[in-house]
């Protein structure tokens, strides 16, 4: 069972609506990644954090998403105005050391934009 907790498991939104998903990383893991997996199984890195600070993010994330990892609260990823192309599985992963070697994925939030 995954130690990275993601909620909700499923999310359905209309175009133009906000879509917010949350992630509780594994205890003691300071680095958090968000990935998008589309219907073609293609993975796209979105953003990563170390503690509360953004390490890297892609252009799409910076322009259309709002993401944060506040201390003592779940991390969150929010699409400000959902588009049909945002329909995908959003995966949160946490890492002890930041690299990929200790990366654990949550169960994901499956977003459907109608």
């Amino acid at each position, binding site marked *: 069972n995954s130690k990275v907790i993601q909620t909700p498991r499923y999310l359905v939104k209309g175009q133009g609506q906000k879509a917010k998903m949350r992630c509780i990383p594994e205890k003691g893991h300071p680095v958090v990644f968000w990935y998008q997996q589309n219907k073609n*199984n293609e*993975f796209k*890195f979105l953003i*990563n954090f170390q503690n509360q600070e953004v*390490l*890297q993010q892609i252009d799409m994330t910076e322009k259309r998403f709002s993401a944060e990892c506040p201390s003592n609260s779940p991390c969150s990823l929010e699409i400000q105005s959902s588009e049909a192309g945002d329909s995908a599985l959003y995966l949160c992963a946490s890492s002890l050391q930041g690299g*990929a070697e200790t990366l*654990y*994925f949550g*169960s994901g939030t499956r977003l459907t934009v109608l």
Partner: protein
Amino acid sequence: QQQVRQSPQSLTVWEGETAILNCSYEDSTFDYFPWYHQFPGESPALLIAIRPVSNKKEDGRFTIFFNKREKKFSLHIADSQPGDSATYFCAASTGGLSGKLTFGEGTQVTVIS
């Protein structure tokens, strides 16, 4: 652009056979090469991984073969079982805090009995 190429897209093997999945990469700075499997409706789970200091890594029925010169690596699933049916992804990463994964396109493996 960093890329990881994976083949075949799908693979069907009989129970007991060895399934072979292949990946190649371009970026020489990649230094960590994991394989994940993903069952329908679930998230990817780490199966086995290798670093370039080795050219082979075994874990039970799963073996990675790594060829640094050719920038290729493969996953061999020996004695395939129906429960191995899943989508398998290779990936690559550089070191450090920004060690984000670059995934291959995936191989859907079906093991028939």
